[in-house]
C-alpha cells in the first residue's frame, strides 16, 4: 500500500526532499514572535542583584531605599521565594552515589558563584529595576572560593556545600579487566593529558521568560524560551504546588537553544514566584552580561588517557581518567554528570577493541553550573580518541587514514557492542572514511602538504571519526526518576476544508522541526505539503512529549508523526469507502484525492471532510468519521539509536604567530533516513562551526578568585563569518530498523568531531617542529608556547 520511504518519483513524496521552511518567511520579514518581544497588560520587569563574589555568606539585605524608588513594585529575597517554592536537587537515581545540594530560586544562606542572582527587583521598566538594584545594599562576607579541580578533591578542602561532606558530585568506574597487563606488554602505548576549556552556548536570543499568574483561577501561564515546554509545565506545577492542568507553558519562536534552554535556571523559577507574589505578569530577559554568568556552561574536562596498540598497529585497549568541574550545583533536572558519563562511554566508540578502563570524577567548585550543551560529551571523547589514534599511527609508522582503515569497526560487523556497554545496531564507519578520503582528495592534500612544507608553508590535515547518541529511550532520564518524557505525541486532523493540522510535542528552534514533520505528514497522508500546518510549543495544545533535544526531533517526533498520519489516512479511507461504497483496500489518498485502484480520482479529501463534518446524515449508519487521530510513540528496541560519521579539517599554521587559518572542513555523516537534505546539511554546518569555535576561540576564563574575566560578547570569542571555512558535506544512509521512518537525528554530528579533526590538523601541521598540543581552544598563545616561540 505504501511506496518505499525515500522514493521521490510520486506525488507528495517529501521524505528525502530538500524543501525550504514555510515558517522561515515570517522570520525573514522581521515578524518572528520571540518571548523577548511579548508584552502583556500590566506586565512588569525583573532585574537581579548578583553576587560579586564566587563564595560568600549573605549577612544582610537592606532594600528599604530601593523600595521607594520610581516604578518599583516588589523586591524579593531568597527567603521570600523559599516560602512558595519547593527546593530542587539535581541528581538522578541511576547515577549511584550522586549528590548535590538543594537549590532555591534565590539563595538564603550564601552565594556560591560570582554572578548568582541574590535579590530580585521588579519594576515598571527594566531600566527602573536596574536603578533600584543599585540601591539595594547586600552585606557579603567572603568565603574561600573552591576553584581548582585538584585542590577541591584534597581531604579537608574548603567545601562548596558544607552539608555534602566533600566536593565530589559523582564518581564512576568502568573496567573490562586486564588493562594493566595489556598496557605492560603492548607493542606501543601512547598517552596524553588533554584539557578542554569551559565554554557556553551563547544563543543569540538570551534566556527569556514571561510568567503570568492569575490568582482568581489559580492559573499559571509561562511564555518561556525553552526547548522543553512539558518538562517545565511539570516542574512549575510541582515546585509551586499548582495542579498540572492549571499550568500552561508556551514556547513561541526561540532564538537558538542548543541544549542551553532546557535546564532549570534560578531566575526563571524566581520570575514564576514573583508573578505569583504580585499577581501580575513578570518578564525577565537576561542581558548578555547576565547570560555569561548564569547560562549553563559546558565541557571543562581534564582527561588523562592512553591507548595501547600491537605491533601491527591494531588498537587493543584504552585507559581513561576524566575529571570534570561542574560548578556549585548539579543542574536540575538533567544533572551535570551526564556529560562526563557520556565522555567515558563514548571513548573509542568507532573502533574495534575489547579492553577498556575509565574513571570519572565530577567535582563541585564555585562557578556557574555546567550541563548539557550540544553534543554532550561527544567532542571530548572524540578529541581524546582521535588524537590518540593519530599518535598511535605515528608510533606504528602508519598514515592516519590507514590507521583508521585498519581499526574502525567493519561495516558488516553489526550488531555489536562497545567495551563501554553501548549496543550498536548498524553503523558505517568504513564507508564514511572512504567517502571522506575521496571528497577531500586526501592523497592529493598529503602530496600538496609535502611540497608546501619545503617552501615553509605549514598545512595540516586532520580526520576524526565519531559515534553520536540519539533518540534516547527512558534509559537516559526516566529510569533515573526524572519526569522527562522519552515519548512524543501528535494529533493529526483533517479540517472541514480538507486541510491538515498536526499538533506535535516536539519543538522548533530554527532547525526545521516543523518543516520535517509537515513533510512526513504530507508524504504519509498523501496531500500537498502546503496543506499541512504544524503547530508546536504549547502544552495546552499538543499532546505531552519529550520535545526536541538529543537529536530526537526527527527520530522520535518524526516517527510519531508518521504513525499518526498513517492512522489518519486509514480513517479517511474508511469514510471515503463508506461514501463511495468501495472497499478501503481499493482506495488510496494521493495529492489530496481519494483514488481508486487504477489511480482514477474519485473524491477530494475536502469533500470527504465536508461530508463528514456537515452531512454526516448521508453516511451509512454506523460510520465513524474519525478525522482526528492522536498517536503516541516511544522508542523500543535499542535503548539509543547511534549515528556515526567522520570529519576532515584542513588548516594552515602561521608558525611565527601561532595563528591558524581554517582552509576547509568536510563531513561525511550517517543520520539514517534523511528527511530533508537541505536542513540536515545546515544542521551539520552549524554544528561544525560550534565545534570549531571550541577548537580555536571559545573559553570561559576565570581568575583564581572565581571571577569570569571575559564575560561579554566582545571578550568571549564566538566564531564569525571571516574565520569559518566553507564546509562540504556528504551522507551515507543507514536507517534504523527500530522505526518505520528510520531517521536517527543529525543535530549533534557537526559538533561531535569538528574540534577533534581540528586538533589533529593543527598537530599535523606542527609535526615538522616536533611540537604538539592537547588543549582546546588552541589559541595563538598556546600554539606559540607549544612551538617554543615564547
Amino acid at each position, binding site marked *: 500500500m505504501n511506496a518505499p520511504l525515500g522514493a521521490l518519483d510520486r506525488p507528495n513524496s517529501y521524505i528525502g526532499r530538500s524543501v525550504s521552511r514555510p515558517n522561515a518567511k515570517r522570520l525573514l520579514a522581521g515578524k518572528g514572535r520571540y518571548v523577548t518581544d511579548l508584552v502583556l497588560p500590566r506586565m512588569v520587569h525583573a532585574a537581579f542583584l548578583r553576587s560579586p563574589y564566587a563564595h560568600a555568606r549573605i549577612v544582610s539585605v537592606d532594600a528599604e531605599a530601593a523600595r521607594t524608588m520610581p516604578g518599583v513594585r516588589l523586591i524579593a529575597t531568597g527567603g521570600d521565594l523559599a516560602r512558595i517554592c519547593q527546593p530542587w536537587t539535581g541528581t538522578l537515581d541511576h547515577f549511584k552515589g550522586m549528590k548535590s545540594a538543594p537549590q532555591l530560586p534565590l539563595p538564603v544562606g550564601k552565594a556560591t558563584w560570582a554572578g548568582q542572582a541574590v535579590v530580585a527587583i521588579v519594576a515598571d*521598566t*527594566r*531600566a527602573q529595576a*536596574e*536603578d533600584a538594584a*543599585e540601591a539595594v545594599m547586600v552585606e557579603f562576607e567572603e568565603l574561600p572560593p573552591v576553584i581548582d579541580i585538584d585542590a577541591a578533591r584534597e581531604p579537608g578542602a574548603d567545601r562548596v556545600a558544607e552539608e555534602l561532606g566533600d566536593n565530589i558530585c559523582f564518581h564512576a568506574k568502568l573496567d573490562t579487566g586486564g588493562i594493566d597487563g595489556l598496557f605492560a606488554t603492548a607493542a606501543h602505548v601512547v598517552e596524553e593529558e588533554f584539557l578542554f576549556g569551559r565554554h557556553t552556548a551563547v544563543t543569540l536570543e538570551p534566556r527569556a521568560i514571561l510568567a503570568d499568574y492569575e490568582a482568581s483561577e489559580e492559573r499559571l501561564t509561562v511564555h518561556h524560551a525553552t526547548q522543553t515546554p512539558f518538562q517545565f509545565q511539570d516542574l512549575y506545577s510541582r515546585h509551586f504546588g499548582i495542579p498540572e492542568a492549571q499550568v500552561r507553558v508556551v514556547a513561541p519562536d526561540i532564538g537558538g537553544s542548543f541544549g542551553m534552554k532546557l535546564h532549570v535556571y534560578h531566575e526563571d523559577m524566581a520570575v514564576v514566584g514573583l508573578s505569583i507574589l504580585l499577581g501580575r505578569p513578570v518578564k525577565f530577559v537576561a*542581558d*548578555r*552580561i547576565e547570560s555569561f554568568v548564569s547560562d549553563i556552561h559546558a565541557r571543562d574536562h581534564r582527561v588523562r588517557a592512553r591507548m595501547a596498540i600491537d605491533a601491527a598497529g591494531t588498537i587493543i585497549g584504552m585507559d581513561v581518567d576524566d575529571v570534570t568541574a561542574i560548578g556549585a550545583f548539579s543542574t536540575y533536572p538533567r544533572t551535570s554528570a551526564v556529560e562526563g558519563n557520556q565522555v567515558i562511554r563514548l571513548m573509542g566508540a568507532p573502533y574495534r577493541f575489547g579492553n577498556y578502563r575509565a574513571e570519572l570524577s565530577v567535582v563541585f567548585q564555585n562557578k556557574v553550573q555546567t550541563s548539557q550543551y550540544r553534543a554532550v560529551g561527544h567532542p571530548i571523547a572524540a578529541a581524546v580518541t582521535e588524537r590518540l589514534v593519530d599518535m598511535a599511527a605515528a608510533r606504528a609508522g602508519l598514515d592516519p587514514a590507514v590507521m583508521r582503515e585498519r581499526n574502525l569497526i567493519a561495516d558488516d560487523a553489526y550488531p555489536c557492542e562497545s567495551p563501554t556497554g553501548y549496543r550498536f545496531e548498524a553503523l558505517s564507519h568504513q564507508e564514511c572514511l572512504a567517502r571522506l578520503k575521496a571528497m577531500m582528495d586526501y592523497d592529493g592534500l598529503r602530496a600538496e602538504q609535502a611540497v608546501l612544507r619545503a617552501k615553509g608553508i605549514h598545512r595540516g590535515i586532520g580526520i576524526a571519526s565519531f559515534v553520536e547518541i540519539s533518540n534516547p529511550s527512558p534509559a537516559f532520564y526516566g529510569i533515573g526518576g526524572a519526569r522527562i518524557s522519552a515519548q512524543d505525541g501528535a494529533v493529526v486532523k483533517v479540517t472541514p476544508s480538507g486541510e491538515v493540522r498536526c499538533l506535535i510535542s516536539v519543538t522548533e528552534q530554527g532547525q526545521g522541526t516543523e518543516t520535517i514533520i509537515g513533510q512526513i505528514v504530507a508524504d504519509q497522508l498523501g496531500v500537498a505539503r502546503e496543506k499541512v500546518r504544524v503547530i508546536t510549543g504549547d502544552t495546552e495544545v499538543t499532546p505531552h512529549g519529550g520535545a526536541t533535544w538529543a537529536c530526537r526531533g526527527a527520530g522520535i517526533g518524526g516517527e510519531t508523526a508518521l504513525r499518526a498520519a498513517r492512522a489518519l489516512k486509514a480513517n479517511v479511507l474508511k469514510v471515503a469507502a463508506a461514501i463511495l461504497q468501495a472497499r478501503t483496500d481499493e482506495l488510496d489518498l494521493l495529492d489530496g484525492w481519494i483514488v481508486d485502484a487504477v489511480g482514477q480520482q474519485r473524491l477530494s479529501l475536502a469533500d470527504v471532510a465536508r461530508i463528514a463534518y456537515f452531512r454526516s446524515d448521508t453516511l451509512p449508519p454506523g460510520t465513524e468519521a474519525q478525522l482526528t487521530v492522536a498517536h503516541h510513540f516511544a522508542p523500543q528496541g535499542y535503548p539509543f539509536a547511534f549515528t556515526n560519521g567522520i570529519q576532515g579539517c584542513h588548516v594552515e599554521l602561521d608558525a*611565527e*604567530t*601561532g*595563528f591558524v587559518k581554517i582552509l576547509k572542513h568536510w563531513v561525511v555523516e550517517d543520520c539514517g533516513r534523511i528527511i530533508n537534505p537541505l536542513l540536515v546539511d545546515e544542521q551539520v554546518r552549524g554544528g561544525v562551526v560550534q565545534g570549531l569555535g571550541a577548537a580555536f*576561540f571559545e573559553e570561559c*576564563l576565570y581568575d583564581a578568585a572565581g571571577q569570569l*574575566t*571575559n564575560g561579554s560578547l566582545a571578550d568571549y*570569542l564566538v*566564531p*564569525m563569518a*571571516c*574565520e569559518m571555512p566553507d564546509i562540504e558535506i556528504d551522507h551515507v544512509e543507514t536507517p534504523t530498523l527500530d522505526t518505520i521512518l528510520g531517521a536517527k537525528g543529525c543535530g549533534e554530528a557537526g559538533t561531535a568531531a569538528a574540534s577533534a579533526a581540528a586538533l589533529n590538523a593543527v598537530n599535523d601541521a606542527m609535526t615538522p617542529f616536533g611540537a604538539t598540543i592537547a588543549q582546546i581552544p588552541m*589559541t*595563538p*598563545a598556546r600554539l*606559540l608556547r607549544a612551538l617554543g*616561540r*615564547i
Partner: protein
Amino acid sequence: MKARAFRYVRPATIAEAFDAFAEAGGEASYLAGGHSLAPALALRLQAPDVLIDIAHIGALRGIVLDGDSLRIGALTRHAEALTDPHIAAHAPLLRMAAPHVAHPAIRNRGTLGGSVALADPAAEFPAVMLAMGAEMEIAGPDGHRRVPAEAFFLDLYQTALEPGELLVAFHVPIARPSHRWAFDEFARRRGDYAVIGAGVMLDMDGPTVAEARIAFLSAAATPVRARQAESCLAGRLLDAGAIADAQQALAGDLDPPDDEQTPAAMRLHLGRVLLGRLLGGLIDNAAVAA
C-alpha cells in the same frame, strides 16, 4: 543593561557645548559617534548627568588641504577614512588602517575624534596619528591650542585634553613621494581589537631610510612610538640586517600588557614578527621605487 538616566543637550556650536559643560558642573560627557560611550553607559561603568551631543557642530567637520598638511575634522567618520580622496592621497596610513577598525556598521558612525580622544591603546587610529606625526587641534573655553600626537597620549585612557576641552581636528603632514607606508595587525577575529598592530612611515632616500616613524597599538598603556627601532633604521640601507636590528630593539620600546590569553612575551614576539613583515614588504616597494 540599561543606562542610568541622563539629560541630553545638542549644541550647534563649540561655544554652546562649553556652556553646556560648564552648566553641568563637570558631570557631563561629550557624545560624538557614541560607539564606545554607549556600551560604557549601558554597563553603568559611566553615568554622567548630561550628555552633550557634539555631532551637529559644523566646525568639527570637514577634510581640507591646508598647505602641506591635511586638516581632518574630529567628526570624520571611520568610513570616510576609507572613501575620502584627500585621505587616500595625503594620509594613506589612515586609509590602510581603516578596514581593520571594527565592522562596517561601526565605521559608519564611529568618529576619528571619538576614537583618538578615548585613547584606547588597542585602537588603530591613535597609533596611526602617532606614526603620521599628526597634531591635535584642541578647543577650550580659552581658545584653541595644538598638541603633537606624542604629547597627547599620556597614560591608559588619559590624554592632554583637559576636562571640558574638545578635540576639534587633526593636522596631518601630507605624504611625500619619498614616503613609504605600511599598516597591519594581528587580531583573533576580523575587526577585533588587535593582539598587536603597527603603522610604519619610512622616508626613503633611494634604498636608504632617511627617517622612520613606527607606532604600535596594543603594546603599552598608550599607543607608542618605537623610537629605538626607528633609530636602528635611520640612515641605513633597508635590508634584512637593519630589519633584524629594529626587531631586536623593540624590547626597549614596548611595554605590553600581560594577561593569561596574551602574555606580554607573546605581544613582544608578535610585535617583532609584525615589524619584520611590514618592513620586509617595504623593501620590495623601495626597490620598485628606485
